[in-house]
Protein backbone atom coordinates (compact mmCIF):
# COMPACT_ATOMS: atom_id res chain seq x y z
CA UNK A 1 0.00 0.00 0.00
CA UNK A 2 1.15 3.47 -0.86
CA UNK A 3 1.39 5.81 2.13
CA UNK A 4 0.91 9.35 0.89
CA UNK A 5 1.26 12.57 2.87
CA UNK A 6 -0.10 15.82 1.46
CA UNK A 7 1.02 19.15 2.94
CA UNK A 8 -1.65 21.80 2.84
CA UNK A 9 -1.32 25.35 4.00
CA UNK A 10 -4.16 27.59 5.11
CA UNK A 11 -3.80 30.94 3.39
CA UNK A 12 -5.84 34.13 3.39
CA UNK A 13 -8.33 33.86 0.54
CA UNK A 14 -6.45 35.27 -2.47
CA UNK A 15 -9.78 36.44 -3.86
CA UNK A 16 -10.26 38.64 -0.82
CA UNK A 17 -7.54 40.90 -2.07
CA UNK A 18 -4.58 42.22 -0.26
CA UNK A 19 -5.77 43.17 3.19
CA UNK A 20 -2.90 41.35 4.81
CA UNK A 21 -1.20 43.48 7.42
CA UNK A 22 2.10 43.23 9.10
CA UNK A 23 2.61 43.40 12.85
CA UNK A 24 4.79 46.46 13.42
CA UNK A 25 6.36 44.85 16.51
CA UNK A 26 7.28 41.33 15.45
CA UNK A 27 7.11 42.20 11.74
CA UNK A 28 5.29 38.98 10.99
CA UNK A 29 2.03 38.59 9.14
CA UNK A 30 -1.21 39.35 10.87
CA UNK A 31 -3.74 37.18 9.20
CA UNK A 32 -6.25 36.65 11.97
CA UNK A 33 -9.17 38.54 10.46
CA UNK A 34 -8.93 36.90 7.05
CA UNK A 35 -10.98 33.90 5.97
CA UNK A 36 -8.58 30.99 5.46
CA UNK A 37 -8.73 28.71 2.43
CA UNK A 38 -6.59 25.87 1.09
CA UNK A 39 -3.56 27.23 -0.71
CA UNK A 40 -4.68 26.84 -4.36
CA UNK A 41 -1.66 24.77 -5.43
CA UNK A 42 -2.13 22.39 -2.51
CA UNK A 43 -5.45 21.34 -4.03
CA UNK A 44 -3.44 20.00 -6.95
CA UNK A 45 -1.16 18.19 -4.48
CA UNK A 46 -4.19 16.56 -2.85
CA UNK A 47 -5.70 15.72 -6.24
CA UNK A 48 -2.48 13.93 -7.22
CA UNK A 49 -2.88 11.74 -4.14
CA UNK A 50 -6.58 11.12 -4.76
CA UNK A 51 -5.93 10.07 -8.36
CA UNK A 52 -3.29 7.60 -7.23
CA UNK A 53 -5.73 6.17 -4.71
CA UNK A 54 -8.22 5.55 -7.50
CA UNK A 55 -5.65 3.33 -9.21
CA UNK A 56 -4.12 1.45 -6.31
CA UNK A 57 -4.35 0.88 -2.59
CA UNK A 58 -3.25 4.03 -0.86
CA UNK A 59 -3.68 5.83 2.44
CA UNK A 60 -3.72 9.60 2.34
CA UNK A 61 -2.70 11.69 5.35
CA UNK A 62 -3.03 15.45 5.20
CA UNK A 63 -0.87 17.66 7.38
CA UNK A 64 -0.99 21.38 7.98
CA UNK A 65 0.81 23.72 10.31
CA UNK A 66 -1.14 26.83 11.17
CA UNK A 67 -3.61 28.56 13.49
CA UNK A 68 -6.46 26.54 14.99
CA UNK A 69 -8.85 27.78 12.27
CA UNK A 70 -6.74 25.81 9.81
CA UNK A 71 -8.57 22.73 11.09
CA UNK A 72 -11.35 23.65 8.66
CA UNK A 73 -9.13 23.30 5.65
CA UNK A 74 -7.84 19.93 6.89
CA UNK A 75 -11.50 18.86 7.27
CA UNK A 76 -12.13 20.03 3.74
CA UNK A 77 -9.35 17.73 2.56
CA UNK A 78 -10.98 14.84 4.43
CA UNK A 79 -14.26 15.62 2.70
CA UNK A 80 -12.43 15.58 -0.61
CA UNK A 81 -11.26 12.04 0.11
CA UNK A 82 -8.17 12.10 2.34
CA UNK A 83 -8.13 9.42 5.04
CA UNK A 84 -6.59 11.17 8.00
CA UNK A 85 -5.88 14.75 8.95
CA UNK A 86 -3.25 16.30 11.19
CA UNK A 87 -3.00 19.88 12.37
CA UNK A 88 0.18 21.19 13.95
CA UNK A 89 -0.93 24.19 15.93
CA UNK A 90 0.80 25.90 18.82
CA UNK A 91 1.47 29.54 19.63
CA UNK A 92 5.15 28.55 19.59
CA UNK A 93 4.96 27.72 15.88
CA UNK A 94 4.02 31.33 14.98
CA UNK A 95 6.31 33.54 12.95
CA UNK A 96 8.12 30.62 11.35
CA UNK A 97 10.14 31.20 8.19
CA UNK A 98 10.44 28.51 5.52
CA UNK A 99 13.24 26.74 7.40
CA UNK A 100 11.34 26.50 10.69
CA UNK A 101 8.13 25.58 8.87
CA UNK A 102 9.85 22.77 6.99
CA UNK A 103 11.52 21.57 10.19
CA UNK A 104 8.22 21.47 12.10
CA UNK A 105 6.36 19.75 9.26
CA UNK A 106 9.14 17.20 8.92
CA UNK A 107 8.80 16.36 12.63
CA UNK A 108 5.06 15.99 12.13
CA UNK A 109 5.55 13.67 9.17
CA UNK A 110 8.02 11.58 11.17
CA UNK A 111 5.43 11.22 13.91
CA UNK A 112 2.75 10.13 11.43
CA UNK A 113 5.00 7.25 10.45
CA UNK A 114 6.47 5.65 7.35
CA UNK A 115 5.59 7.28 4.04
CA UNK A 116 6.26 6.55 0.39
CA UNK A 117 5.33 9.85 -1.18
CA UNK A 118 4.85 13.43 0.02
CA UNK A 119 3.07 15.97 -2.16
CA UNK A 120 3.37 19.69 -1.62
CA UNK A 121 2.24 22.63 -3.68
CA UNK A 122 4.94 24.36 -5.66
CA UNK A 123 4.43 27.57 -3.69
CA UNK A 124 2.05 29.11 -1.21
CA UNK A 125 0.02 32.09 -2.33
CA UNK A 126 0.92 34.24 0.69
CA UNK A 127 4.53 33.30 1.32
CA UNK A 128 5.49 31.87 -2.03
CA UNK A 129 9.09 31.18 -1.21
CA UNK A 130 8.81 27.67 -2.70
CA UNK A 131 11.33 26.56 -0.08
CA UNK A 132 9.16 24.46 2.24
CA UNK A 133 9.00 21.32 0.04
CA UNK A 134 12.72 20.99 -0.78
CA UNK A 135 13.77 21.90 2.77
CA UNK A 136 11.38 19.39 4.28
CA UNK A 137 12.68 16.70 1.93
CA UNK A 138 16.20 17.51 3.07
CA UNK A 139 15.26 17.16 6.74
CA UNK A 140 13.53 13.85 5.99
CA UNK A 141 16.54 12.74 3.89
CA UNK A 142 14.51 11.95 0.79
CA UNK A 143 14.92 13.20 -2.79
CA UNK A 144 12.69 15.96 -4.10
CA UNK A 145 11.51 17.10 -7.50
CA UNK A 146 9.98 20.54 -7.59
CA UNK A 147 7.44 21.85 -10.09
CA UNK A 148 6.21 18.44 -11.20
CA UNK A 149 3.70 18.71 -14.03
CA UNK A 150 3.20 15.03 -14.90
CA UNK A 151 3.51 11.76 -13.00
CA UNK A 152 4.58 9.71 -16.00
CA UNK A 153 5.25 6.35 -14.39
CA UNK A 154 4.24 5.55 -10.83
CA UNK A 155 4.48 1.78 -10.90
CA UNK A 156 6.96 0.36 -8.43
CA UNK A 157 9.69 1.84 -6.31
CA UNK A 158 11.13 4.14 -8.96
CA UNK A 159 8.93 6.83 -10.41
CA UNK A 160 9.42 8.82 -13.55
CA UNK A 161 8.06 12.35 -13.47
CA UNK A 162 8.15 15.42 -15.68
CA UNK A 163 8.94 18.77 -14.12
CA UNK A 164 9.15 22.34 -15.34
CA UNK A 165 12.33 23.81 -16.71
CA UNK A 166 12.66 27.07 -18.66
CA UNK A 167 10.98 26.57 -22.06
CA UNK A 168 10.59 22.85 -21.68
CA UNK A 169 10.61 20.02 -19.22
CA UNK A 170 12.99 17.71 -17.41
CA UNK A 171 12.41 14.01 -17.05
CA UNK A 172 13.38 12.79 -13.58
CA UNK A 173 13.76 9.27 -12.24
CA UNK A 174 13.27 9.13 -8.49
CA UNK A 175 13.44 6.35 -5.92
CA UNK A 176 10.72 6.30 -3.27
CA UNK A 177 10.26 7.54 -0.62
CA UNK A 178 10.34 10.97 -2.20
CA UNK A 179 8.75 14.41 -2.09
CA UNK A 180 7.19 16.16 -5.07
CA UNK A 181 6.04 19.77 -5.32
CA UNK A 182 3.38 20.16 -7.96
CA UNK A 183 2.27 22.80 -10.45
CA UNK A 184 -1.26 23.54 -11.55
CA UNK A 185 -0.63 21.74 -14.84
CA UNK A 186 -0.51 18.39 -13.06
CA UNK A 187 -4.27 17.92 -12.76
CA UNK A 188 -7.63 19.58 -12.28
CA UNK A 189 -8.70 19.43 -8.62
CA UNK A 190 -12.14 17.94 -7.98
CA UNK A 191 -14.93 19.80 -6.26
CA UNK A 192 -16.43 18.89 -2.89
CA UNK A 193 -19.26 16.39 -3.09
CA UNK A 194 -22.17 16.05 -0.71
CA UNK A 195 -21.38 12.39 0.00
CA UNK A 196 -17.77 13.34 0.71
CA UNK A 197 -18.90 15.85 3.30
CA UNK A 198 -21.12 13.25 4.95
CA UNK A 199 -18.36 10.63 5.04
CA UNK A 200 -15.85 13.12 6.41
CA UNK A 201 -18.04 13.74 9.45
CA UNK A 202 -16.73 10.48 10.88
CA UNK A 203 -13.10 11.33 10.21
CA UNK A 204 -11.18 13.23 12.84
CA UNK A 205 -8.44 15.79 12.73
CA UNK A 206 -5.58 14.96 15.08
CA UNK A 207 -4.13 18.12 16.61
CA UNK A 208 -0.56 18.19 17.81
CA UNK A 209 1.08 20.92 19.84
CA UNK A 210 4.77 21.56 20.38
CA UNK A 211 5.07 18.98 23.18
CA UNK A 212 3.57 16.26 21.01
CA UNK A 213 6.36 16.70 18.49
CA UNK A 214 9.10 16.52 21.10
CA UNK A 215 10.98 19.39 19.52
CA UNK A 216 12.79 22.04 21.59
CA UNK A 217 10.90 25.34 21.61
CA UNK A 218 13.82 27.22 20.13
CA UNK A 219 13.75 25.08 16.97
CA UNK A 220 10.28 26.19 15.87
CA UNK A 221 8.41 29.39 15.12
CA UNK A 222 10.12 32.75 15.17
CA UNK A 223 12.91 31.48 17.46
CA UNK A 224 13.76 28.62 15.14
CA UNK A 225 13.84 30.84 12.07
CA UNK A 226 17.27 31.77 10.70
CA UNK A 227 15.76 34.72 8.83
CA UNK A 228 13.91 37.66 10.31
CA UNK A 229 12.33 40.78 8.94
CA UNK A 230 14.56 43.66 9.91
CA UNK A 231 12.59 46.55 8.52
CA UNK A 232 9.67 47.58 6.40
CA UNK A 233 10.27 50.64 4.28
CA UNK A 234 7.93 52.37 1.92
CA UNK A 235 8.81 52.41 -1.71
CA UNK A 236 9.10 55.66 -3.53
CA UNK A 237 7.49 56.03 -6.87
CA UNK A 238 8.96 58.70 -9.05
CA UNK A 239 6.47 58.71 -11.90
CA UNK A 240 4.00 61.53 -12.43
CA UNK A 241 0.89 60.24 -14.08
CA UNK A 242 -0.88 62.05 -16.83
CA UNK A 243 -4.46 60.84 -17.16
CA UNK A 244 -5.81 60.70 -20.67
CA UNK A 245 -9.23 62.38 -20.61
CA UNK A 246 -12.25 62.66 -22.87
CA UNK A 247 -14.46 60.18 -24.67
CA UNK A 248 -13.26 56.67 -25.41
CA UNK A 249 -12.32 57.68 -28.95
CA UNK A 250 -10.40 60.68 -27.66
CA UNK A 251 -8.50 58.59 -25.14
CA UNK A 252 -7.63 56.03 -27.79
CA UNK A 253 -6.43 58.79 -30.11
CA UNK A 254 -4.20 60.24 -27.40
CA UNK A 255 -2.76 56.84 -26.55
CA UNK A 256 -2.05 56.11 -30.22
CA UNK A 257 -0.17 59.41 -30.31
CA UNK A 258 1.82 58.53 -27.18
CA UNK A 259 2.75 55.23 -28.79
CA UNK A 260 3.65 56.84 -32.07
CA UNK A 261 5.85 59.40 -30.30
CA UNK A 262 7.60 56.62 -28.42
CA UNK A 263 8.30 54.82 -31.68
CA UNK A 264 6.18 51.85 -30.70
CA UNK A 265 4.05 51.88 -33.83
Amino acid at each position, binding site marked *: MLNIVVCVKAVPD*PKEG*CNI*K*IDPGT*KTLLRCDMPLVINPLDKHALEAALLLKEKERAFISVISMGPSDAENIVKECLALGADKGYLLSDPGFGGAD*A*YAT*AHTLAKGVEKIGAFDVIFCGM*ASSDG*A*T*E*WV*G*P*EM*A*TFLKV*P*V*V*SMVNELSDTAGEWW*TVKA*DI*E*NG*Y*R*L*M*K*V*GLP*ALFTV*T*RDLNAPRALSFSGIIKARKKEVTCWVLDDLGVPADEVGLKG*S*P*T*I*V*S*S*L*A*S*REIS*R*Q*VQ*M*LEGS*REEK*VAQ*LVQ*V*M*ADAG*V*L
Partner: protein
Amino acid sequence: MSNKHGPIWVVAEQLDCRILDVSLQLAGKARCLADELGVDVEAVLMGDGVADRASELFAAGADRVYTVDAQELAVYQPEAYTEIITRLAKEKEPEIMLLGSSIMGRELAPLVAARLDTGLSAHCIDLVLDDNGILEQQIPAYGGLLSIICPERRPQMATVARGVFPKPDPDDGRSGEIVELAVPADLPGRIQTVEVVREETGGVDLDSASVVVAGGAGAGDREGWDEIAELAGLLNAGFGCTRPAVDEGWAELEAMIGQSGKMVNPEFYIGVGLSGEQQHMVGIMDARIMVAVNNDDKSPVFQQVDYGVVDDCRKFVPVLIEKIKEYREKMTTC
Protein backbone atom coordinates in the same frame (compact mmCIF):
# COMPACT_ATOMS: atom_id res chain seq x y z
CA MET B 1 30.50 37.99 15.69
CA SER B 2 34.00 38.00 14.32
CA ASN B 3 34.88 40.71 11.87
CA LYS B 4 36.68 38.26 9.65
CA HIS B 5 34.27 37.55 6.83
CA GLY B 6 34.31 34.62 4.46
CA PRO B 7 34.09 35.06 0.67
CA ILE B 8 30.97 35.91 -1.29
CA TRP B 9 29.77 33.06 -3.43
CA VAL B 10 27.85 32.91 -6.65
CA VAL B 11 26.52 29.57 -7.79
CA ALA B 12 26.87 29.93 -11.55
CA GLU B 13 24.45 28.30 -13.93
CA GLN B 14 25.19 27.28 -17.49
CA LEU B 15 23.10 26.13 -20.40
CA ASP B 16 25.00 24.19 -23.06
CA CYS B 17 28.21 25.56 -21.55
CA ARG B 18 27.11 29.20 -21.81
CA ILE B 19 27.01 30.97 -18.49
CA LEU B 20 23.59 32.47 -17.90
CA ASP B 21 23.19 36.24 -17.73
CA VAL B 22 21.83 36.05 -14.21
CA SER B 23 25.04 34.41 -12.97
CA LEU B 24 27.17 37.17 -14.50
CA GLN B 25 24.84 39.80 -13.07
CA LEU B 26 25.23 38.21 -9.65
CA ALA B 27 29.01 38.06 -10.01
CA GLY B 28 28.96 41.80 -10.73
CA LYS B 29 26.79 42.50 -7.68
CA ALA B 30 28.92 40.18 -5.54
CA ARG B 31 31.99 42.18 -6.60
CA CYS B 32 30.46 45.41 -5.24
CA LEU B 33 29.47 43.75 -1.96
CA ALA B 34 32.85 42.05 -1.65
CA ASP B 35 34.69 45.34 -2.09
CA GLU B 36 32.67 46.80 0.75
CA LEU B 37 33.48 43.85 3.00
CA GLY B 38 37.05 43.45 1.80
CA VAL B 39 36.62 39.82 0.76
CA ASP B 40 36.90 37.70 -2.41
CA VAL B 41 34.21 36.73 -4.85
CA GLU B 42 34.15 33.03 -5.59
CA ALA B 43 31.96 31.20 -8.09
CA VAL B 44 31.05 27.56 -8.34
CA LEU B 45 30.64 26.35 -11.90
CA MET B 46 29.43 22.84 -12.67
CA GLY B 47 28.90 21.26 -16.08
CA ASP B 48 30.48 19.32 -18.90
CA GLY B 49 33.22 21.25 -20.71
CA VAL B 50 32.73 24.43 -18.71
CA ALA B 51 36.26 24.94 -17.37
CA ASP B 52 37.28 27.48 -20.01
CA ARG B 53 34.13 29.50 -19.31
CA ALA B 54 35.54 30.59 -15.96
CA SER B 55 37.12 33.60 -17.68
CA GLU B 56 33.64 35.11 -18.15
CA LEU B 57 33.12 34.94 -14.40
CA PHE B 58 36.52 36.54 -13.78
CA ALA B 59 35.64 39.32 -16.21
CA ALA B 60 32.38 39.86 -14.32
CA GLY B 61 34.09 40.15 -10.95
CA ALA B 62 35.05 36.73 -9.57
CA ASP B 63 38.48 36.18 -7.97
CA ARG B 64 38.29 32.41 -7.86
CA VAL B 65 36.18 29.84 -9.68
CA TYR B 66 35.65 26.31 -8.46
CA THR B 67 34.96 24.18 -11.50
CA VAL B 68 33.53 20.72 -11.49
CA ASP B 69 33.74 19.41 -15.01
CA ALA B 70 32.19 16.03 -15.69
CA GLN B 71 30.05 14.43 -18.33
CA GLU B 72 27.37 13.54 -15.82
CA LEU B 73 27.01 17.20 -14.80
CA ALA B 74 26.07 18.42 -18.27
CA VAL B 75 22.55 19.08 -17.02
CA TYR B 76 21.49 19.97 -13.49
CA GLN B 77 21.64 16.90 -11.28
CA PRO B 78 20.07 17.70 -7.90
CA GLU B 79 22.09 15.24 -5.81
CA ALA B 80 25.52 15.96 -7.22
CA TYR B 81 25.02 19.73 -7.39
CA THR B 82 23.72 19.89 -3.81
CA GLU B 83 26.48 17.68 -2.50
CA ILE B 84 29.27 19.57 -4.25
CA ILE B 85 28.09 22.97 -3.06
CA THR B 86 27.30 21.83 0.47
CA ARG B 87 30.64 20.16 1.06
CA LEU B 88 32.62 23.01 -0.41
CA ALA B 89 30.63 25.57 1.57
CA LYS B 90 31.29 23.72 4.81
CA GLU B 91 34.99 23.93 4.04
CA LYS B 92 35.22 27.49 2.72
CA GLU B 93 32.55 29.06 4.94
CA PRO B 94 31.24 31.72 2.58
CA GLU B 95 29.65 34.77 4.15
CA ILE B 96 27.02 35.14 1.45
CA MET B 97 25.79 32.73 -1.24
CA LEU B 98 23.78 34.01 -4.21
CA LEU B 99 21.86 31.97 -6.76
CA GLY B 100 19.76 32.99 -9.74
CA SER B 101 16.05 32.36 -9.33
CA SER B 102 16.00 30.17 -12.38
CA ILE B 103 14.15 26.90 -11.99
CA MET B 104 17.42 25.22 -11.07
CA GLY B 105 18.24 27.92 -8.53
CA ARG B 106 14.79 27.70 -7.03
CA GLU B 107 15.26 24.00 -6.32
CA LEU B 108 18.95 23.99 -5.52
CA ALA B 109 18.95 26.96 -3.12
CA PRO B 110 16.60 25.42 -0.55
CA LEU B 111 18.36 22.05 -0.83
CA VAL B 112 21.67 23.70 0.02
CA ALA B 113 20.23 26.05 2.65
CA ALA B 114 18.60 23.20 4.56
CA ARG B 115 21.79 21.16 4.46
CA LEU B 116 23.76 24.11 5.80
CA ASP B 117 21.05 24.91 8.36
CA THR B 118 20.88 28.49 7.28
CA GLY B 119 18.32 31.03 6.10
CA LEU B 120 17.35 31.75 2.53
CA SER B 121 15.38 34.62 1.11
CA ALA B 122 13.45 34.37 -2.13
CA HIS B 123 13.51 36.50 -5.25
CA CYS B 124 15.21 39.57 -3.82
CA ILE B 125 15.03 42.83 -5.70
CA ASP B 126 18.00 44.40 -3.95
CA LEU B 127 20.88 43.42 -1.71
CA VAL B 128 22.63 45.92 0.52
CA LEU B 129 25.03 45.66 3.43
CA ASP B 130 23.99 47.33 6.67
CA ASP B 131 26.40 49.09 9.04
CA ASN B 132 27.38 45.78 10.61
CA GLY B 133 28.12 44.16 7.27
CA ILE B 134 24.93 42.12 7.38
CA LEU B 135 23.14 41.54 4.12
CA GLU B 136 19.74 43.17 3.85
CA GLN B 137 17.79 41.09 1.38
CA GLN B 138 14.99 43.23 0.08
CA ILE B 139 11.70 41.94 -1.19
CA PRO B 140 8.53 43.87 -2.03
CA ALA B 141 5.59 43.19 0.27
CA TYR B 142 2.57 44.84 1.81
CA GLY B 143 2.95 47.99 -0.20
CA GLY B 144 6.54 48.50 0.89
CA LEU B 145 9.94 46.95 0.84
CA LEU B 146 10.76 44.28 3.42
CA SER B 147 14.33 43.75 4.50
CA ILE B 148 15.04 40.17 5.43
CA ILE B 149 18.21 39.41 7.33
CA CYS B 150 19.88 36.24 8.51
CA PRO B 151 21.71 37.66 11.51
CA GLU B 152 23.47 34.62 12.95
CA ARG B 153 23.78 31.72 10.57
CA ARG B 154 26.05 31.56 7.58
CA PRO B 155 26.09 31.76 4.68
CA GLN B 156 23.41 34.39 4.15
CA MET B 157 21.61 32.98 1.15
CA ALA B 158 19.39 34.68 -1.43
CA THR B 159 17.96 34.03 -4.86
CA VAL B 160 17.70 36.85 -7.37
CA ALA B 161 15.96 36.92 -10.75
CA ARG B 162 17.61 37.68 -14.06
CA GLY B 163 17.51 41.38 -14.78
CA VAL B 164 17.45 42.66 -11.19
CA PHE B 165 21.10 43.67 -11.38
CA PRO B 166 22.77 44.97 -14.52
CA LYS B 167 25.17 42.78 -16.43
CA PRO B 168 28.63 44.15 -15.60
CA ASP B 169 30.78 45.37 -18.47
CA PRO B 170 33.25 42.54 -18.85
CA ASP B 171 36.72 43.49 -17.64
CA ASP B 172 38.80 41.17 -19.81
CA GLY B 173 41.96 42.25 -18.02
CA ARG B 174 40.76 40.52 -14.87
CA SER B 175 41.81 36.99 -14.17
CA GLY B 176 41.70 34.71 -11.21
CA GLU B 177 42.37 31.33 -9.82
CA ILE B 178 40.68 28.20 -11.15
CA VAL B 179 40.30 25.38 -8.66
CA GLU B 180 39.26 22.08 -10.22
CA LEU B 181 37.20 19.70 -8.15
CA ALA B 182 35.90 16.18 -8.71
CA VAL B 183 32.34 14.87 -8.45
CA PRO B 184 31.86 13.19 -5.06
CA ALA B 185 32.00 9.43 -5.45
CA ASP B 186 29.60 8.58 -2.65
CA LEU B 187 26.27 10.01 -3.84
CA PRO B 188 23.14 8.21 -2.63
CA GLY B 189 21.86 7.79 -6.18
CA ARG B 190 18.17 8.27 -5.36
CA ILE B 191 17.35 10.76 -8.10
CA GLN B 192 18.52 11.40 -11.61
CA THR B 193 17.79 13.90 -14.36
CA VAL B 194 17.28 11.58 -17.31
CA GLU B 195 16.69 14.19 -19.93
CA VAL B 196 16.10 17.91 -20.40
CA VAL B 197 13.90 18.83 -23.33
CA ARG B 198 13.73 22.43 -24.53
CA GLU B 199 10.91 23.51 -26.74
CA GLU B 200 10.97 26.35 -29.23
CA THR B 201 8.81 29.09 -27.81
CA GLY B 202 6.47 30.92 -30.08
CA GLY B 203 5.95 34.66 -29.88
CA VAL B 204 8.20 37.46 -28.74
CA ASP B 205 10.69 36.77 -25.97
CA LEU B 206 9.51 38.65 -22.88
CA ASP B 207 13.01 39.00 -21.47
CA SER B 208 14.32 41.02 -24.36
CA ALA B 209 11.16 42.64 -25.75
CA SER B 210 11.29 46.41 -26.15
CA VAL B 211 7.52 46.65 -25.81
CA VAL B 212 5.63 44.67 -23.18
CA VAL B 213 1.87 44.34 -22.86
CA ALA B 214 0.72 42.80 -19.59
CA GLY B 215 -2.77 41.62 -18.80
CA GLY B 216 -4.37 41.10 -15.40
CA ALA B 217 -7.47 39.82 -13.68
CA GLY B 218 -9.48 42.69 -15.19
CA ALA B 219 -9.50 40.89 -18.53
CA GLY B 220 -12.49 39.08 -17.04
CA ASP B 221 -12.48 35.95 -19.16
CA ARG B 222 -10.73 34.13 -21.98
CA GLU B 223 -12.30 36.38 -24.60
CA GLY B 224 -11.10 39.51 -22.83
CA TRP B 225 -7.70 37.90 -22.54
CA ASP B 226 -7.53 37.15 -26.24
CA GLU B 227 -8.20 40.81 -27.00
CA ILE B 228 -5.20 41.86 -24.93
CA ALA B 229 -3.17 39.14 -26.64
CA GLU B 230 -4.18 40.57 -29.99
CA LEU B 231 -2.97 44.00 -28.90
CA ALA B 232 0.38 42.47 -27.88
CA GLY B 233 0.66 40.68 -31.20
CA LEU B 234 -0.14 43.84 -33.13
CA LEU B 235 2.61 45.74 -31.31
CA ASN B 236 5.04 42.86 -31.72
CA ALA B 237 5.27 43.04 -27.95
CA GLY B 238 6.23 40.53 -25.31
CA PHE B 239 3.00 39.40 -23.66
CA GLY B 240 3.21 39.23 -19.89
CA CYS B 241 0.69 38.82 -17.12
CA THR B 242 -0.05 38.99 -13.41
CA ARG B 243 -0.58 36.01 -11.19
CA PRO B 244 -4.38 35.80 -11.38
CA ALA B 245 -4.06 35.35 -15.16
CA VAL B 246 -1.92 32.29 -14.53
CA ASP B 247 -4.35 31.06 -11.88
CA GLU B 248 -7.23 31.42 -14.32
CA GLY B 249 -5.30 29.39 -16.88
CA TRP B 250 -5.22 32.22 -19.43
CA ALA B 251 -1.44 32.43 -19.43
CA GLU B 252 1.54 30.25 -18.68
CA LEU B 253 3.61 30.76 -15.56
CA GLU B 254 6.53 31.72 -17.78
CA ALA B 255 4.64 34.85 -18.81
CA MET B 256 4.24 36.12 -15.25
CA ILE B 257 6.03 39.37 -14.57
CA GLY B 258 7.10 40.33 -11.09
CA GLN B 259 8.79 39.30 -7.93
CA SER B 260 8.31 35.58 -8.35
CA GLY B 261 8.25 35.73 -12.13
CA LYS B 262 10.23 37.62 -14.70
CA MET B 263 11.97 40.94 -14.41
CA VAL B 264 11.72 42.81 -17.70
CA ASN B 265 13.14 46.13 -18.86
CA PRO B 266 11.14 47.22 -21.88
CA GLU B 267 11.13 50.70 -23.37
CA PHE B 268 7.34 50.75 -23.32
CA TYR B 269 4.91 48.97 -21.03
CA ILE B 270 1.12 48.79 -21.13
CA GLY B 271 -0.65 47.16 -18.19
CA VAL B 272 -4.28 46.27 -18.87
CA GLY B 273 -6.78 45.35 -16.14
CA LEU B 274 -4.22 45.05 -13.39
CA SER B 275 -4.14 46.80 -10.04
CA GLY B 276 -0.49 47.78 -9.78
CA GLU B 277 0.22 45.39 -6.94
CA GLN B 278 3.88 45.67 -5.88
CA GLN B 279 4.74 42.07 -6.56
CA HIS B 280 3.92 42.64 -10.20
CA MET B 281 5.22 46.20 -10.56
CA VAL B 282 8.73 45.45 -9.31
CA GLY B 283 9.15 43.38 -12.44
CA ILE B 284 8.86 46.38 -14.76
CA MET B 285 10.07 49.31 -12.69
CA ASP B 286 12.74 50.35 -15.13
CA ALA B 287 10.52 50.67 -18.18
CA ARG B 288 10.99 54.06 -19.85
CA ILE B 289 7.31 54.76 -20.51
CA MET B 290 4.48 53.07 -18.67
CA VAL B 291 0.77 53.10 -19.44
CA ALA B 292 -2.12 51.61 -17.46
CA VAL B 293 -5.69 50.88 -18.48
CA ASN B 294 -8.04 50.23 -15.58
CA ASN B 295 -11.75 50.87 -15.04
CA ASP B 296 -11.26 52.06 -11.46
CA ASP B 297 -10.01 55.64 -11.31
CA LYS B 298 -8.76 55.03 -7.77
CA SER B 299 -6.63 52.04 -8.69
CA PRO B 300 -3.14 52.30 -7.20
CA VAL B 301 -1.74 51.42 -10.61
CA PHE B 302 -2.26 55.04 -11.66
CA GLN B 303 0.30 56.24 -9.13
CA GLN B 304 2.96 54.14 -10.76
CA VAL B 305 2.71 54.90 -14.46
CA ASP B 306 3.26 57.80 -16.86
CA TYR B 307 -0.07 57.65 -18.67
CA GLY B 308 -3.37 56.46 -17.29
CA VAL B 309 -6.63 55.53 -19.00
CA VAL B 310 -9.77 54.96 -16.95
CA ASP B 311 -11.96 52.68 -19.02
CA ASP B 312 -13.35 49.18 -19.31
CA CYS B 313 -10.63 47.26 -21.12
CA ARG B 314 -13.22 45.07 -22.84
CA LYS B 315 -14.46 48.15 -24.65
CA PHE B 316 -11.23 50.13 -24.85
CA VAL B 317 -8.82 47.49 -26.17
CA PRO B 318 -10.80 46.58 -29.33
CA VAL B 319 -11.05 50.27 -30.25
CA LEU B 320 -7.36 50.75 -29.58
CA ILE B 321 -6.53 47.79 -31.83
CA GLU B 322 -8.67 49.22 -34.60
CA LYS B 323 -7.13 52.70 -34.34
CA ILE B 324 -3.59 51.35 -34.32
CA LYS B 325 -4.38 49.48 -37.52
CA GLU B 326 -5.85 52.63 -39.04
CA TYR B 327 -2.82 54.66 -37.98
CA ARG B 328 -0.49 52.17 -39.61
CA GLU B 329 -2.48 52.09 -42.83
CA LYS B 330 -2.35 55.86 -42.98
CA MET B 331 1.41 55.79 -42.48
CA THR B 332 1.97 53.31 -45.30
CA THR B 333 -0.32 55.06 -47.77
CA CYS B 334 1.13 58.54 -47.44
